[in-house]
Structures are given as structure tokens and as C-alpha cells.
């Protein structure tokens, strides 16, 4: 038939039809010569006796016209063969593509049939979906088992695993959420009509699951409302599932209450009392948790949210043993149904014990975070609290950190401006006219030609500074609220922002000096500089805490720390002088002035506390730097082979975050080398004077002893000044523990130095084996940091080596 269609040019339709019918019927063909001759004359080359049937196809260009398969108005054409031929005709490397489709995009394409990428790829015998029946009757023990398993997965999620590998592996949760329910009533373990009424156990489990889902929704809302890092802190991805976002809290609470009421009043079912108790405990816990997680909290009842949650926990732990696990109700295959492009990944298994521990920690951390709202409203108190919170061990979970950040940053900008002014007041403007509230009440003169009141000018200068600095100040606070590693990285940025601010503040300082002579010299620069130096110290100290520096880098890093702390110490000393001058001046004044003098004195306590801390840091860092240097000479400091770098490049790398600072804090490599290599290279010390003789002399060790001693004195002074002076009254316990840790670090450093000194005394004597022989007599252990747990160091910031005599 299609042959004819192509050669149909000279023939009319009617003949064609006739022709074909004759071709098909040989008897007809031979019965009529006339028609046969018709056909022959159409094809002159053909022999009249030939069968036209074979003549026709060989003469015509053949082309298969594809026929579409039609299915409900959609036509589809099989193009396999032609497509294949066409692609074979392409050149190697030639692409036929959409002009807007980029290589970059193509990288994101998932490769079908690749088991690592293709989520639909099935191993032989594997089925795509799970066939667990969610309406299968459940025993109360099984419900408890499922609830506890869900809790484990929920806590795994809180630790940072995605929902797909945790809660979303539950068949029950999947049934509730997919297909997307339009109302709460529709969120059932079945969809559409169900012939049999659901069982009570299903209703109880359903209420619990709904509450879990809502809890997740609240957690995501809270975490995303603050600064966090996706997949670093937490996974908020819900794979296109709506976590009952539209359902009000009350509805879910109502479901829980109905379930509880059912258990309490139920007389008919043969559930034992202890199982009822276990089920009730879990429902009550969910209810309390849901209320605690609700983002719209009431500020006046803040302290009433978390204790009820904590109260239910012991009951859950005690009744965990009644549960019977139902492993079939969880399946990784459910991941295929999520809007995710990756093949199923293994479920994250968290033991109930560990999950429960995390849950307890979450409650405790959140309860602690609430205390922030009751602190004395001073920026230093707040910051001490934030530091203490961030230093808690184990590190608070992402939710708890967001919970705290929410209190810190929920207030508007004005509150932060106020905090910034308070910060200025306590550091550089003690009872100062510059920050007198009256300044802000003075109106500018109507006549622009008239000179403005000095006080008004001061107020506008301070406003100008606040406007400029508020962003950086805010970022500093944000950095302190991040996870520990991120905090260090963000402080590196914040430090540079303060560096820029410092150069901008100079102009305003000049203007302030023009207005008043009775102020601290360059107050704004001083304030910014102090903050900047403190941040540099933090960056280095957090580096020790996070074990960023290798043992052989400790001499240089402690040297760097001691230099920064020394600069800060000098800065604080000028401030202290200023405070003292002001205090004594005011004490001589009138009654009101004397009252002010009292407050200056109180403020001086803070400066003294900072000074003691800076000074202690400087001394201890100096001692450790020197000690590690000598340990390097004694070949007791482990040094890894580094074939591809040299010390100067490594130094540059370590100093990279600080290189652009002005004034330049980083000293040249040559200076550092000279400082850290007093007797020539570690491997090849100067022959004269002899190294053994130097080290056996007690003078060099005395220098370290002395530094440790001064550090100890400084930290003791800091301790004596107390948490109140340090403005850490709200976190007195952990502050004291921190100072105590510094003191103990000093003691440990003293002991370590003494031990090495003792052994070194014998150096140079016969039979000792000189410096080389020290390895046989001493072992130095670099005490590792605790990480997420309480570590072995007295203070995470002080790497004091442990020296063991062999």
C-alpha cells in the first residue's frame, strides 16, 4: 500500500485501488489483458510478462512512513531506528543540544542505570516499594516500640542527618504525609474510604506521629529563622513534603489529648496498666515538647516551657523496655517516593540510649538558653553567656543554638544600638559627658548659621559611629552564636571588618577631641582596637581548641598569641590609667560627682579584669612558646616530614587572616625565626656555645618559670576580681571553671618545665648521651582537645604538654 502512495503521480485514485486489488488476486490479473497492459505501459522498461508485483518495488525509492500509536489523543511515533542512524552519523564529540543547555547543567543530570545515581535502579529481585500494611493491627507493645524508634530517628535528625534517612523512613509518617493531605482529617494511615474502622492503637500512633511531624515543622521554622548552615548544622530539606505547616497547634494538641483520654478512660481493652502508663508518658511528652517548640512563645512564661518536657523524660526511659520493635514499619525504599534524586541511602541508626541522651541534652540546653532573657542587660553579660553556652559540652544542638539566637536577635536594631553604646560606655566612656542621655534631647538651633550645641554635636558623632559600627557589631554577635568551627571562621571575617572600622573611627575621634578635652585619647579607635585584638586572640585560641596547629607550630602560634595579648595589655593599661584619673577627679567633686566616682570604680573592675586576663594570656603564651622551642631543640617535639613546603610559606599561610590588618600586627618571618631559634636551627644548632651546656644551665628555664609564675598571679587576680567584675555573673559557674582551668594550666606548665629542667641538668655530663639521648629519657605528650566531650586539657585553649620521665 505505501509503495503506491509514492508512485501515485500519474495514476488516479480509482485505478490505484483497482490495481492493487488485482495485484492481490492473480486470477483477476490474467483474466483481463487490457488492464494488465495498462500497468505495463505505465512502466515502459518492464517486460509485459513480468509480474508487476515484483517490478514495482524495485523501481521506487522506498521509505517507511511511520505510523503513530495513538492513545487518548496523544500520538507517539517510533523513531528508534532513524534516531539511531542519525546519531551514528554524528561526528565524535558533536552534540545536538538546546542552545541554552550548558555543560554545567548537564553535570547535574542523573545517569540512568548507574546504581549510585539512579534511584530507580533495582538489583535483581529487588522490589521498588515496600509492601508493609499500615492498617495491620498493632499491639500496644508494638506502638511503644514504633514511638521509641521514631524518637531515635528524630534525634538523629536533630544531630544533622536528613529526614530522608531518619523519620521519613517510617511507613506511618509516609502514609500521613503522602498524598499531601488537604486537612488534618485526611492525614490518616489510609486514603479515601476505608471499609473497616481504624483501631484504637492506630489512633494513638497517629496522634503521636502527627505531633512528631508538627515538632519537625516547628524546629525547621525556628532554625531557618536564624543564621545557620544547611547540611553543616542541620538539614531542613523536607523533600517536597508539607509538614502540616498549615495545621494549627491546637488541632494537634487536641488529637493528642483525645488519644490520652481514650487510654485513661478505656475499660474494655485488655491493655495492662503499665503499658497504658508507657503510652501516656509518650503522649504527654509529645504534648509538652510541642508546646515548648511552638515558635510563638510567651515571654512571661518562658521558664515554664521546658521543665514539663524534662519531667516526662524519666518515665519514657523507664518504660522503654516494654516496647517491641517493628522493623518492618521502617524502610529505606520510601526514599524513592520523596522528591529526591539520590538512590536510597541507609537509615541512620541511633541507639535509644544515645538518642535519649541527646534529648535530655536538648531540654537542658534550651532551659539554659531561656536564662539569657533574665540576665542583667549589659552587653558583656550577654556575651559571657553566649560564650559559655557555645562552650558547653557536648556542643548544643542546632535547635538549641537557634533557640538562644532567637532571644538575642529577635529584638530590633535599636536594642543593638543601645548595647553598642553600653559597650562603649563600659570600655572608653565611663560616666562620660559624651554618652550623657541629655545630649540626645537637645534640639538643633532653628538658624542653621548658629553654632550647634556641643552636646548635640557629640550625640550626632556617636550616632554616626553607631550607624557605621552596628552592622559589624551585629556580625560579631552572630559569629559567636555559630557552631564552634564556624565561629572561628566568622571571627576571621569580623576581625577584618573591625579593622576597617578602626580606620573609619579616626575621623570621628578627631571631632570628639575638638569638642572635649576631658575624654580618653582616641576613644572610638581604642574601643574598636580592643575588640579587634580580642577577636584575633579568639581566633588563635579557637585554633588551639580545634587542633588546627601541629605540635611543631605551637612555638610560633603561642609566640603570636603572646604578642597580641601584650598589645592588648598595653591598651588596657592606658584605659585603666584613664579610669583611675577620672575616678580620683570625681571623688574630689560634689556629691553627685562622688556617686559617679563610685560607678567609675565599679567600671574599673571590669577593665582590671580584662587586664588580668590579657596579661595572664600573654605570660602563659610566652612561657609555652619558649618551652616548646626548647623542646624542639631537645628533639622532643614531633615534626612531620614536609617535603613540599618551607617554614616561611607555612608561616604566611597561618598569618593569612591577619596579614591585611592595620596597624600591622604580623611580624616578619625573619623576626619570628630569630625569636624562635635562639641557638640556630633545631636540627643543626650553633656549635658555640654548646647546646648541652646552654640547656643544662638553669637560667633559661628560670625565664620560663618566671613567666608561668606571673601568669598564675594574673589568673589568680582575675579569679579574685570575680565573675561580677568580669561581667559574667550570669554564668558564674562556668566562668569560674574557665579561670580555674587557666590556673591549672599554669600549674601543669610549671610542672612540665620543672621536669625537663631537672633532666637537662645532667646534660653535658658523661654517659647521658647529650641532647640526642633525651628521647630515651623523656617523652612529651601533646594533650589532645576534647572536641565534643570534656577533654583531658585543663582548658581547651591551653595546650600544655605532658612530660613523662622514662
Amino acid at each position, binding site marked *: 500500500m505505501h509503495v503506491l502512495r509514492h508512485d501515485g503521480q500519474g495514476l488516479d485514485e480509482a485505478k490505484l485501488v483497482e490495481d492493487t486489488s488485482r495485484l492481490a488476486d492473480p486470477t483477476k490479473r490474467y483474466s483481463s489483458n487490457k488492464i494488465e497492459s495498462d500497468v505495463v505501459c505505465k512502466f515502459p522498461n518492464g517486460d509485459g510478462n513480468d509480474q508487476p508485483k515484483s517490478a514495482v518495488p524495485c523501481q521506487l525509492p522506498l521509505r517507511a512512513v511511520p505510523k503513530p500509536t495513538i492513545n487518548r489523543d*496523544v500520538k507517539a511515533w517510533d523513531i*528508534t531506528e532513524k534516531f539511531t*542512524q542519525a546519531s551514528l552519523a554524528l561526528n565524535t564529540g*558533536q552534540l545536538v543540544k538546546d542552545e541554552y*543547555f550548558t555543560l554545567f547543567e548537564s553535570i547535574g*543530570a542523573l545517569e540512568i542505570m548507574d546504581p549510585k545515581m539512579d534511584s530507580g535502579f533495582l538489583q535483581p529481585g529487588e522490589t521498588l516499594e515496600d509492601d508493609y500494611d499500615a492498617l495491620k493491627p498493632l499491639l500496644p507493645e508494638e506502638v511503644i516500640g514504633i514511638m521509641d524508634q521514631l524518637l531515635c530517628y528524630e534525634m538523629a535528625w536533630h544531630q544533622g542527618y536528613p529526614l530522608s534517612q531518619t523519620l521519613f523512613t517510617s511507613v506511618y509518617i509516609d502514609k500521613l504525609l503522602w498524598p499531601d493531605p488537604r486537612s488534618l482529617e485526611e492525614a490518616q494511615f489510609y486514603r479515601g474510604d476505608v471499609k473497616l474502622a481504624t483501631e484504637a492503637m492506630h489512633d494513638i500512633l497517629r496522634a503521636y506521629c502527627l505531633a512528631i511531624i508538627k515538632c519537625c515543622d516547628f524546629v525547621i521554622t525556628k532554625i531557618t529563622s536564624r543564621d545557620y548552615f544547611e547540611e553543616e548544622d542541620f538539614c531542613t530539606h523536607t523533600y517536597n513534603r508539607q509538614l502540616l505547616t498549615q495545621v494549627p497547634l491546637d488541632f494537634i494538641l487536641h488529637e493528642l489529648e483525645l488519644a490520652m483520654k481514650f487510654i485513661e478512660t478505656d475499660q474494655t481493652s485488655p491493655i495492662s496498666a503499665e503499658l497504658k502508663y508507657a503510652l501516656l508518658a509518650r503522649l504527654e511528652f509529645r504534648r509538652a515538647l510541642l508546646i515548648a517548640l511552638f515558635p510563638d512563645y510567651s515571654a512571661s512564661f518562658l521558664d515554664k516551657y521546658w521543665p514539663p518536657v524534662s519531667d516526662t523524660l524519666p518515665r519514657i526511659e523507664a518504660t522503654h523496655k516494654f516496647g517491641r520493635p517493628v522493623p518492618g514499619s521502617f524502610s529505606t525504599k520510601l526514599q524513592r517516593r520523596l522528591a529526591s*534524586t539520590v538512590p536510597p541511602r541507609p537509615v541512620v541508626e541511633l541507639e535509644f540510649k544515645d538518642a535519649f541522651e541527646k534529648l535530655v541534652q536538648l531540654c537542658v540546653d534550651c532551659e539554659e538558653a531561656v536564662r539569657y532573657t533574665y540576665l542583667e542587660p549589659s552587653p558583656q553579660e550577654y556575651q559571657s553567656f553566649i560564650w559559655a553556652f557555645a562552650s558547653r559540652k557536648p556542643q548544643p544542638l542546632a535547635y538549641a543554638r537557634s533557640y538562644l539566637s532567637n532571644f538575642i536577635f529577635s529584638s530590633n536594631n535599636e536594642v543593638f544600638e543601645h548595647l553598642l553604646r553600653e559597650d562603649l560606655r563600659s570600655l572608653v566612656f565611663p560616666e562620660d559627658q559624651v554618652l550623657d542621655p541629655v545630649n540626645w534631647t537637645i534640639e538643633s538651633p532653628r538658624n542653621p548659621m548658629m553654632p550647634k550645641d556641643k552636646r548635640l554635636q557629640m550625640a550626632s558623632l556617636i550616632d554616626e559611629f553607631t550607624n557605621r559600627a552596628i552592622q559589624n557589631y551585629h556580625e560579631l554577635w552572630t559569629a559567636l552564636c555559630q557552631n564552634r568551627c564556624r565561629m572561628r571562621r566568622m571571627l576571621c571575617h569580623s576581625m577584618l571588618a573591625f579593622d576597617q572600622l578602626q580606620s573609619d573611627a579616626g575621623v570621628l575621634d578627631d571631632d570628639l577631641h575638638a569638642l572635649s578635652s576631658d575624654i580618653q585619647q582616641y576613644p572610638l579607635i581604642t574601643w574598636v582596637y580592643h575588640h579587634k585584638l580580642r577577636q584575633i586572640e579568639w581566633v588563635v585560641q579557637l585554633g588551639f581548641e580545634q587542633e588546627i596547629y601541629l605540635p611543631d607550630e605551637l612555638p610560633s602560634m603561642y609566640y603570636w598569641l603572646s604578642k597580641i595579648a601584650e598589645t592588648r595589655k598595653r591598651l588596657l593599661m592606658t584605659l585603666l590609667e584613664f579610669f583611675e584619673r577620672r575616678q580620683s577627679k570625681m571623688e574630689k567633686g560634689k556629691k553627685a560627682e562622688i556617686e559617679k566616682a563610685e560607678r567609675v570604680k565599679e567600671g574599673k573592675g571590669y577593665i582590671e579584669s580584662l587586664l588580668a586576663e590579657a596579661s595572664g594570656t600573654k605570660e602563659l603564651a610566652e612561657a609555652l612558646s619558649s618551652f616548646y622551642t626548647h623542646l624542639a631543640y631537645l628533639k622532643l617535639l614531633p615534626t612531620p616530614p614536609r617535603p613540599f613546603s618551607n617554614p616561611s610559606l607555612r608561616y604566611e599561610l597561618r598569618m593569612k587572616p591577619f596579614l591585611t590588618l592595620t596597624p600591622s600586627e604580623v611580624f616578619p618571618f625573619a623576626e619570628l625565626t630569630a625569636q624562635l631559634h635562639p641557638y640556630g636551627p633545631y636540627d643543626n644548632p650553633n656549635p658555640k656555645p654548646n647546646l648541652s651546656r646552654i640547656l643544662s644551665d638553669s637560667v633559661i628555664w628560670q625565664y620560663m618559670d618566671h613567666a608561668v609564675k606571673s601568669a598564675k598571679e594574673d589568673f589568680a587576680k582575675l579569679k579574685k576580681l570575680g565573675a561580677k567584675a568580669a561581667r559574667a555573673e550570669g554564668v558564674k559557674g562556668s566562668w569560674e571553671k574557665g579561670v580555674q582551668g587557666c590556673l591549672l594550666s599554669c600549674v601543669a606548665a610549671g610542672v612540665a618545665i620543672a621536669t625537663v629542667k631537672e633532666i637537662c641538668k645532667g646534660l653535658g655530663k658523661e654517659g647521658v648521651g647529650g641532647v640526642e639521648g633525651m628521647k630515651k629519657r623523656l617523652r612529651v605528650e601533646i594533650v589532645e582537645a576534647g572536641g565534643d566531650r570534656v577533654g583531658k586539657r585543663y582548658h581547651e585553649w591551653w595546650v600544655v604538654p605532658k612530660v613523662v620521665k622514662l
Partner: protein
Amino acid sequence: MDNQEATSYLTQFVGKTLRIYSTDGRIFVGQMKCTDRDRNVILALTHEYRHPSEAAIKKAIQESGNPATQVPLTSRYVGLVVVPGQYITRIEYEEGQFNRDGVVP
């Protein structure tokens, strides 16, 4: 077919809906974005269709009591995929509902 002809033939399918059958019996329906000499095809906005499992068919027959009952293909959105040429068993061009977009299949 020479290169020019092949290129213009293939180019007409860019942005058009193709159905690609894979060796494991799945069908991928999506917009063609790109192809090459090895017949690898990149499809965008792809849905994956799969024949229901035997168990599902049995269940459907059992429930309806009709051995000729219809069981729908299960579908899943998979987005941007590349189907390697070696796994392709059949390619179909799906005509738009209202016009043929000038494509010569």
C-alpha cells in the same frame, strides 16, 4: 544519512517530548535536551514510568475479580537525567497535543 541531515533530523527533537524505553523495562518521558554519537540522551523534567510488579497485578486482579483489570503504570518524577545509549531499547517521539511542531518523525 549524512552528518548535516542527521544533525537537522535530531535537532528537531530538541525541547520535544521523547519516551525512552530502557533495558530494564522502564520508560522515561521528558524533554530532550541533548544527544550525541553514542545515542546518550539527556532528558529534562523527566518522569519515570514502570510496569507494576507482579504482586501488584495479582492483588489488583484479586481485588477487582476481573483478570483483565487495568493496573496503571507507576510514575515518579526524576528530573534531569541522562539515559546512556547502551541501555536504550526504543525511542518514541510524543507529538504535542495540538500541533506537530513541524517535526518530521
